[in-house]
């Protein structure tokens, strides 16, 4: 596994260019390296053949910032906490988010708790990113997704104990953080524990004005143990708990009293490097997410009526994944997985006069999914390899309580139960035209079942367009053809990569106005119901280049542009304009420094009338980091000083809901001790 020797946050390297002598499949499925120093981002450039490794030695980077540094990933921001990731303009049900292959679903009806908000870098080892259906995915999906691989202590040849402790402080918002992790093991067993606590007050935007309701407090802890049974078998248990309290969402009308997740699993792994069946992992899991919104801290003029809005999500599931090497050239992957997810969300309203009102906003919706996926990676020739795969999901959705059925009786005629078979097929080719020049092309037929919110949501208020959204149990599955083509070229001192992609949607799911329905939320502009648009199209181009004039210095840039429109030519919402980043990084003997610039253009390609999105103004933001690692034996101290938004620019990104300004100048100190 390639490791970057100098500090370059999220440096992009084409794996197959660097490891030409090894068959691609060999290291692709290798066991993750056990380490505490870094979080690794594996970005599956198309269907898993070409992997990009990016690492950050700063373990204290929050997941939101790690994600937003990944190519093609943009974050929808509703506050200073729990950003929602999008991949190339796709989000929500269009992407799969799993933790160690486990499905977890956020409990909030207002998307305040994306799954990534329940993970901290302290318990994270790898973020795998995929850009379409592929072997890296655990379900059908159009836009790929994320798998957050948790850090696990692994048995080793001899007894070991290692750990870390860290603390961080930020001037903006007076944010503090403490974290710690410890792992111990010997030949037959290993245990690990990790925890983090972080807290922030209200931050200040560029120019110094305070952003009210941007505070948060949270802790996260993980425990795991692994026992080796013989040479090839391992049993593991893992438990993760994450609890956030008093979390402000300045872009929304309510904050969060608490957001809690409890995630547990039991897994068995068989691995035998030289056998044909060289890896086989099976897992059963359960998770519970409990979430409650809170409006009691808002000034009374912002709260026309006090409401309690709790919600919860329960998921039980399993998967079993086997890798079979037919010969040196061909590896098959078989994945069978399934889950049951139950979502409940309710709202109690307390008017100044009159009786309190109660309603279900997600009327006890349930989804059972079972899926079968088979893929093959095949080296046709030394210079030409391919991946081909098929995935079939059977998705059964319905309502599990009588009250839920009654609630929907006034909206949906007939049965609300849905059974849908969803097919994904993917094919990717990779050609090495020259030892340092690679070309790849991928084609996928993707589909996804509508989410439970899209099927059964009951007056879910969307702050972006100020509409109440109703589910539609008659929705068809959303489908698309994904096409990608790209190339990468590398010389000793420089490299460049360019790729283009498009998604051609059919039955694109979006809200359509129901003029005959009256709003439920006070102040809402109207009611929309999810419907299938006949089509939509998404195009994009991504460019990255790096130059290394001498050892230790690297200058790099990435450029990304995405364009989306629906069947009527209206701009799709939540699509970033042109984004550029430029960085110059230097590393020498444990010292590192980086200066970077983020640029985003204006976005005028919006449909205010149809999707409620307003144009946004571009920005340029400057950041700098210096760090030094001191090593003495197995002890290592890592100090990091960063300044974000050096020029104290007042800015927001296009995907920021309600255009709430982002933090102004912020000095960040991180110190970590490893042993």
């Amino acid at each position, binding site marked *: 596994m390639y490791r970057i020797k100098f500090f370059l946050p999220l440096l992009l390297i084409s794996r197959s260019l660097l490891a030409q002598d090894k068959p691609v499949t060999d290291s692709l499925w290798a066991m993750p390296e056990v380490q505490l120093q870094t979080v690794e981002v594996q970005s599956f450039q198309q269907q898993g053949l070409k992997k990009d490794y990016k690492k950050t030695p700063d373990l204290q980077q929050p997941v939101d910032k790690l994600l937003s540094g990944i190519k093609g990933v943009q974050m929808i921001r509703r506050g200073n906490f729990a950003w929602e990731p999008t991949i190339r303009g796709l989000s929500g049900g269009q992407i799969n988010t799993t933790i160690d292959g486990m499905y977890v679903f956020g409990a909030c009806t207002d998307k305040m708790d994306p799954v990534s908000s329940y993970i901290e870098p302290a318990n994270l080892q790898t973020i795998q990113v995929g850009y379409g259906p592929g072997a890296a995915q655990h379900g059908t999906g159009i836009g790929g997704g994320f798998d957050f691989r948790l850090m696990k202590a692994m048995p080793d040849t001899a007894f070991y104990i290692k750990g870390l402790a860290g603390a961080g402080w930020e001037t903006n918002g007076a944010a503090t953080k403490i974290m710690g992790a410890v792992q111990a093991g010997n030949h037959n067993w290993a245990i690990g524990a990790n925890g983090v606590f972080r807290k922030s007050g209200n931050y200040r935007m560029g120019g110094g004005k305070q952003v009210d309701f941007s505070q948060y407090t949270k802790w996260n802890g993980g425990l795991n143990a692994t026992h080796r049974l013989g040479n090839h078998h391992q049993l593991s248990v893992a438990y993760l708990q994450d609890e956030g309290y008093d979390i402000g969402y300045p872009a929304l009308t309510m904050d969060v009293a608490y957001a809690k997740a409890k995630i547990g699993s039991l897994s068995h792994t068989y691995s035998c490097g030289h056998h044909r069946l060289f890896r086989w992992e099976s897992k059963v899991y359960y998770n519970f997410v409990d979430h409650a919104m809170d409006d009691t801290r808002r000034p009374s003029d912002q709260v026309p009526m006090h409401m309690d809005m709790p919600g919860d999500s329960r998921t039980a599931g399993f998967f079993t994944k086997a890798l079979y090497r037919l010969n040196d050239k061909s590896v098959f992957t078989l994945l069978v997985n399934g889950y049951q997810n139950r979502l409940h969300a309710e709202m109690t309203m307390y008017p100044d006069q009159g009786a309190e009102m109660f309603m279900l906003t997600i009327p006890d919706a349930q989804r059972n999914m079972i899926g079968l996926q088979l893929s093959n990676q095949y080296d046709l020739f030394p210079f030409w390899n391919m991946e081909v795969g098929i995935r079939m999901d059977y998705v059964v959705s319905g309502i599990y309580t009588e009250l839920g059925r*009654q609630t929907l009786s006034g909206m949906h005629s007939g049965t609300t139960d849905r059974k849908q078979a969803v097919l994904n097929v993917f094919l990717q080719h990779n050609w090495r035209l020259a030892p340092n020049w690679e070309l790849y092309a991928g084609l996928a037929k993707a589909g996804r079942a509508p989410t439970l919110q899209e099927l059964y949501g009951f007056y879910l208020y969307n702050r972006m367009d100020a509409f109440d959204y109703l589910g539609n149990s008659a929705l068809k599955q959303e489908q698309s053809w994904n096409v990608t083509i790209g190339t990468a070229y590398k010389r000793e001192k420089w490299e460049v990569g360019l790729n283009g992609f498009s998604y051609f949607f059919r039955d694109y799911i979006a809200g359509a106005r129901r003029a005959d329905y009256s709003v439920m939320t006070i102040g809402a502009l109207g009611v929309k119901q999810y419907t299938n648009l006949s089509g939509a199209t998404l195009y994009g181009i991504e460019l990255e280049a790096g130059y290394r004039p001498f050892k230790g210095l690297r200058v790099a840039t990435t450029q990304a542009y995405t364009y989306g429109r629906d069947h009527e030519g209206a701009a799709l919402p939540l699509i970033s304009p042109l984004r550029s980043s430029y960085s110059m990084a230097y590393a020498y003997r444990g010292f590192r420094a980086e200066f970077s610039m983020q640029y985003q253009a204006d976005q005028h390609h919006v449909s205010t009338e149809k999707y409620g999105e307003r144009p946004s103004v571009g920005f340029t933001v400057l950041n700098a980091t210096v760090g030094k690692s001191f090593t003495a034996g197995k002890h290592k101290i890592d100090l990091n000083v960063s300044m974000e938004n050096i020029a104290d620019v007042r800015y927001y990104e296009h995907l920021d809901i309600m255009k709430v300004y982002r933090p102004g100048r912020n000095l960040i100190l991180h110190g970590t001790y490893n042993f």
Partner: protein
Amino acid sequence: MKNYFFPVWVLLVLAGASACSHKPGDDPLPATDRHEIGSALSADQYRVTLYADSSKLFTGFNKLYIKIEDEQSSPVSDIELSLLPEMDMGMHRHGCPVNPPEYRNTSSLFEAAAVFTMPSVDGDWRIHVLLNDDTVSFPVEVHDFETKVVGSFSGLDGEKYVLSLCRPAHWNVGLNDITFTLHRQEGPFAYPEVLDAIIEMTPEMPSMGHGSPNNVHPVSIGNGYYKGVVNFTMTGDWRMHLKVSRNGTVVLEDAALDILF
């Protein structure tokens, strides 16, 4: 008030005594479903027992059940029966809309309904049961229901209308059948049913200002009843705005009745 309570008390005791004289199993009534309001003997020695769906009577629509038994305690069906509620306010008296008693073989009871237009506050209600040429009277207390489920409205056509909501045992979130009664007030004791009205129903939550979709306007199903479907998206206070038209012209612009559940 006091002089009014006394006879009810006596009647209830009498009713209890008469019930005790029955052998178990003789009574065709499922005891839990209906509540006895009163029981008395007519001059012809018929025992007249009045029941309702709950132990209390409320303003608005109340279903009433009348059991007539002969001296052998056998149910009587072939008898001329009518119902006349009367409000005595001292200075004047008036009645209220009634659905006349009809005998049901299934329950061996006469089923009727009365739409009490006011509670027993400014006067006393009595229910007169007229059988053959005899009259049995039951003083009753009509409690003010917690929401406005009945109203007397002056129509734009100069008529006076009584509109009431038939309350079901319980409301559900989502779709509910909903029934109203509509009567015209001709005189203090004359409330003919209105059969030809067109009603437009618009539910609203007054504390939030919103309505609900997919309601079905009530239509006349005979005997002054109008039946439709209402969609409650949540629990709480609901106001039914009813616009009533007759012969192509609007007679009530906004007659509102309230539901709380």
